[in-house]
């Protein structure tokens, strides 16, 4: 190695951004690594049992759910995003916000609600029986029901990311296509879709990761997936080795998906080259077409938001008396404050790691950035136990007394591991859009990396950063298994509050905490939309 390359290497190694990123990644990965060290005993009896009896079912169900949810969320998310980007019609502004609202409802609550609606005492069967005298047996508690719910409550991920991509698209390509004689439909399929491919796969990847790690909905519906399998093997059968083997298979799957997504992004390089993007002139739809557009867009809002909300409201009327007390306000405050802290810290870390990975072309930073987002695909309970084990170890060996364990710090730390991917994806797409041109210009003009970051990059990706914070906030207030395990004594959040009633088979009582949770979500989403609007102006 000659002197010059040595110097260059040193330069890379001493880079403070990379250094901070490595430290952060180390801490975020430590709890997960801690779990793997318990693999030492190598007792594989249970794993053999599971491979023979349950594994095929786990693989089949997880695969089908991921495949169809991915497909359906793509169809709904992309089509609605396109309609709202290109056309102007009555109520289109309200619909634009309405299409994101399903994100405010946790999928497990959607599960309780839909099983309630379709149950024997639910609104549909009871109407059929009491009014028409007809005995109707409906069933949503199966794999189709799981796919249905994941689709209608997770498509907003695809919608948001695709819509923001469409909005930022340079009009010239669309115009060129038009000039060359392509119809709207042809333009959409042959120009827009290939261009938007990266945004769409980004959204679908988020959906699939969320689906693979989800526990509440599939377990309530009795559908066995990897996530329910890991939980059962580990906690019920008490077999750590077998559970970790399952988790490794699951992570392998997720890495494959991420790899495919990266590959598909690989050749793209369409960052915009000036700060002013010409907004697309929306086409005013005729009355007849407006009606079609409204009906089309209302379907997902109806299933993903209006129907479940109405069911919850009707349950609220049965049970509201039990909730009017100051303790409930404390619960709301807990939910809110922990989610704000978690969202801000997660986003800051996402920005640091994402910026490092952008500035460093080397392998290390790329690998780190991917590793730290793996938490999104690991079931919350697994992360929780990893974090617990790690901090008990730290407290015992380093501090010789309880410092971290039993505090809210553990919860926030676990949220960061779990949701870094969400913040990271949003921040990264912001960086992608501005490309390196402005950064390079600034550096050429004499600003350092850090100064450029604060003076040039951050102001340009502000929208994405706020978006990252809001998405993470939404995820955290909805989170359940991790919160249940790590929360300190007497610490209730809205999600744990509603969960305990469902556990006790008192679904109606879970309505009020659920509704408040959803209201907070709605406020945040509307806030998000207003900021987006401002940004566009």
């Amino acid at each position, binding site marked *: 190695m000659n002197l010059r390359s040595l110097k260059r290497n040193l330069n890379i190694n001493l880079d403070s951004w990379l250094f901070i990123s490595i430290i952060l990644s180390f801490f975020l990965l430590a709890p997960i690594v801690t779990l793997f060290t318990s693999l030492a005993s190598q007792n594989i009896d249970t794993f053999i049992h599971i491979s023979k009896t349950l594994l095929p079912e786990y693989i089949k169900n997880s695969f089908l759910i991921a495949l169809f949810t991915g497909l359906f969320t793509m169809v709904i998310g992309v089509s609605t995003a396109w309609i709202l980007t290109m056309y102007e019609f009555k109520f289109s502004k309200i619909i634009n916000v309405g299409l994101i609202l399903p994100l405010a409802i946790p999928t497990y609550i959607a599960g309780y609600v839909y099983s309630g609606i379709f149950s024997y005492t639910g609104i549909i069967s009871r109407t059929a029986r009491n009014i028409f005298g007809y005995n109707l047996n409906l069933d949503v508690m199966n794999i189709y029901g799981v796919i249905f719910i994941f689709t209608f409550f997770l498509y907003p991920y695809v919608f948001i990311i695709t819509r923001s991509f469409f909005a930022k698209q340079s009009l010239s390509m669309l115009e060129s296509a038009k000039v060359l004689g392509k119809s709207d439909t042809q333009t959409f399929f042959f120009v827009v879709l290939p261009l938007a491919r990266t945004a769409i796969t980004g959204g679908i990847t988020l959906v699939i990761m969320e689906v693979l790690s989800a526990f509440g909905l599939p377990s309530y519906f009795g559908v066995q997936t990897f996530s329910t399998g890991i939980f059962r093997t580990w906690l019920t059968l008490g077999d750590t080795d077998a559970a970790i083997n399952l988790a490794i298979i699951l992570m392998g799957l997720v890495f494959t998906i991420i790899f495919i997504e990266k590959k598909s992004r690989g050749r793209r390089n369409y960052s915009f080259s000036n700060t002013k993007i010409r907004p697309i002139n929306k086409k005013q739809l005729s009355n007849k077409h407006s009606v079609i557009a409204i009906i089309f867009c209302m379907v997902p809002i109806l299933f993903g938001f209006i129907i479940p909300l109405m069911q919850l409201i009707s349950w609220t009327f049965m049970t509201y008396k039990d909730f009017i007390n100051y303790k409930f306000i404390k619960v709301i405050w807990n939910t809110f*404050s922990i989610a704000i802290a978690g969202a801000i810290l997660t986003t800051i870390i996402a920005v640091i790691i994402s910026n490092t990975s952008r500035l460093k072309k080397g392998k290390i930073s790329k690998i780190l950035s991917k590793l730290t987002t793996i938490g999104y695909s690991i079931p919350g309970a697994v992360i929780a136990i990893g974090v617990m084990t790690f901090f008990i170890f730290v407290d015992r060996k380093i501090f010789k007394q309880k410092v971290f364990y039993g505090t809210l710090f553990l919860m926030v730390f676990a949220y960061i591991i779990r949701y870094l991917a969400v913040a990271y994806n949003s921040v990264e797409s912001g960086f992608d859009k501005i490309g390196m041109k402005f950064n390079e210009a600034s550096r050429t003009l004499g600003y350092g990396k850090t100064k450029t970051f604060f003076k040039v990059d951050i102001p340009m990706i502000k929208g994405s950063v706020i978006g990252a914070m809001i998405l993470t906030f939404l995820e955290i207030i909805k989170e359940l298994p991790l919160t249940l395990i790590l929360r300190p004594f007497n610490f209730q959040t809205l999600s744990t509050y509603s969960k305990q009633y469902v556990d006790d088979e008192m679904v109606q009582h879970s309505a009020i905490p659920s509704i408040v949770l959803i209201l907070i979500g709605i406020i945040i989403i509307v806030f998000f939309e207003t900021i987006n609007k401002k940004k566009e102006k």
Partner: protein
Amino acid sequence: MKKIIPFIVLSAGLLTGCFKNKEEVKVSSETKTPKATKELNIYTQRNYDIDKELIAEFEKETGVTVNVSKAGADELLKKLEIEGKDTPADLFITTDAARLGRAKDLDLLQPIKDKEVLDLVPANIRDKDNYWTSFTYRARIFAYNKAKTDPSVFSTYEDLADPKWKGKILVRSSTNSYNQALIASMIAANGEESARKWIRGLVANMARSPKGNDRDQSKAVIAGIGEVAIINTYYLGKMIHSADPEERKVGEQLAIFFPNQDGRGTHINVSGMGITKYSKNIINAEKFIKFYLNEKSQSRFTNENYEYPSNKNVAVNGTVKSWGDFKIDDLTLSELGKNFRKGTIMADEEGWK
């Protein structure tokens, strides 16, 4: 840098705010004179409204501050295991004797010393070495539609494996602890091979793939999807007194059959509690057990939650009483812990989802 400083300050502020809260609790827990503590930390799987109310009453009566951490039984057990001697928990409460047995086997509990309190509870519903005691119990029974089914067709759990029940049995998943305990009791009563055959027969007779909770099984009986549902007694009580009129209707159409009355008796399971091995507030834990087992608390469990009280001096609630007296399976509940892992694996192998 300037721009993120407010964020960092804000989030750090929120966090330290939270820490502070926690430290207050910790300081009091570290006063290590075992007799004078003013605190009790509970890990519980149960959090019915009745539990919350009784805990509040206990606090008022004794001046002890009770801290509650509620999660699934398996998660709590894992927590106790990982925390080891550092656990803050004093009491472990769960709704399944098999889990209590497992806690004992994992060396996470210590014996309860107050003999006077233990004597209130019949020996078959507490641990033989006093590592835990139940405070309520309930039976796992058959629920059927009064108008459609004559109870003379029912006899035993074993009978449900007979092909005559094809397409008629409703039961929830074997991932549920009530079913795991039932399977464990079948192993204890009839041996492994016979229990395996029973599971196989039961699976073949199921009206549908297992899903939903116990209330869903009862509703499916009234909906005519199957003829008999295996459920816990108190769910019927709760449906009869539900906030939802349509659920009340379902509850009123159902009747209960206690299986195996001519043999070993009906399988029961308990809500029970044990003091953790590393408890720092043993006195308060003993006090709490005594409080949960006193006549006032016990009659509230049966009157408001439709459970059977463990205290033998307390009368059962009217609704519960109307189901009739029954013979309890006298297999000591302490044995369930031993068979439950085997039974769960067996259920997997035989396709009980």
